[in-house]
């Protein structure tokens, strides 16, 4: 961690001053810890749902590697997007655009963490799990960040696959392969991502517009985005019931998924019906979109928590 933007000098002085951990906090912020928490939870559910047994130490190592891989990818993303982060109000205070960490150091940190996470996962579990983690990092960095994000309003739809990988990595850590069950978990996160991010982009569209990122509200307008949030949320409901329909979860999960999904749909409907001008821009500070964004986080966490809880109930 030698890339902090400070002037070299001598410590000097007889007494040792107390350590200042604000810089360490900046390095930690590069890992996008809030995104990481959801990624880790999804990976944990994939691991818990997998048939077979994994030594608790190796299971904890697998989760740690998923977290480090996600963090490494996040750091590389912050390195690459430092130009657009600097002009967006939401991201301008991040360590790289704010000048607290040098871009090259952030890149090195991200690559180091990514490589280490893949190698350690391979060492602790199996090569296939390591390969799926490497694929998810590569997808996020090369496909989403470098290719799609600045080119197409479908960036979130296709790029969402990167965030949907963790249950597969968790599952593969136990079994060494992929079957239908983790692919269904992948599909749930894949379908959840667009309404989640488009709700955010509805109130952050000015940021994206300034940065030239073609998020859906910028490229197609707020009205079209509201409709897409509603349609994707509608499509998510049957997908979320697939674990029950395919027989690998029970009625408790089905009930939870239905209730959570109907609530999500109600929020999406509020986004569609929110008082708006002729272009679909909110007349009420995007209150409905903000509520939907917050609920979408709760939705995914609760839905994924329902899977292992349902498994416990059926034992």
């Amino acid at each position, binding site marked *: 961690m030698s890339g902090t933007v400070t002037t070299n*000098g001598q410590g*000097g002085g007889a007494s040792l001053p107390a350590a200042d951990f604000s810089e360490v906090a900046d390095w930690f912020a590069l890992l996008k810890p809030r995104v990481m928490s959801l990624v880790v939870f999804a990976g944990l559910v994939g691991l818990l749902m997998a048939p077979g047994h994994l030594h608790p130490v190796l299971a904890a190592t697998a989760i740690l590697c998923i977290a480090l891989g996600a963090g490494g990818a996040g750091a590389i993303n912050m390195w690459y997007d430092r130009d657009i982060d600097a002009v967006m109000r939401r991201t301008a205070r991040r360590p790289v655009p704010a000048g607290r960490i040098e871009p090259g150091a952030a890149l090195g940190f991200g690559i180091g963490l990514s490589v280490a996470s893949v190698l350690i996962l391979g060492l602790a579990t199996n090569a296939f799990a390591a390969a799926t983690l490497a694929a998810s990092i590569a997808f996020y960095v090369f496909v989403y960040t470098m290719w799609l994000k600045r080119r197409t309003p479908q960036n979130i739809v296709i790029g969402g696959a990167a965030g949907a990988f963790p249950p597969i990595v968790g599952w593969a850590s136990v079994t060494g392969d992929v079957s239908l069950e983790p692919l269904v978990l992948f599909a749930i996160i894949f379908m959840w991502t667009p309404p989640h991010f488009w709700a955010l982009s509805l109130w952050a569209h000015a940021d994206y517009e300034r940065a030239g990122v073609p998020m859906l509200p910028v490229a197609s307008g707020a009205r079209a985005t509201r409709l897409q949030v509603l349609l994707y949320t509608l499509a998510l409901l049957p997908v979320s019931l697939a674990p029950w329909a395919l027989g690998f979860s029970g009625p408790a999960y089905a009930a939870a998924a239905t209730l959570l999904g109907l609530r999500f749909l109600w929020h999406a409907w509020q986004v569609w019906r929110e008082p708006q001008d002729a272009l679909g821009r909110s007349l009420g500070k995007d209150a409905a979109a903000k509520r939907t964004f917050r609920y979408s986080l709760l939705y995914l966490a609760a839905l994924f928590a329902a899977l292992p809880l349902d498994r416990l109930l059926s034992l």
Partner: protein
Amino acid sequence: MTPEEAQQFTRRRRARNWAMLLALLGLVVLFFLITVARRSAAV
């Protein structure tokens, strides 16, 4: 560099060194535990 800047630099370097030490110790412990777990799984 003013004395205040020098002291700030030292404070940050100390924090960085602590973080590096903890990370390295964590890796050592992690590799040890992985080895033990894999050996016990193989028995």
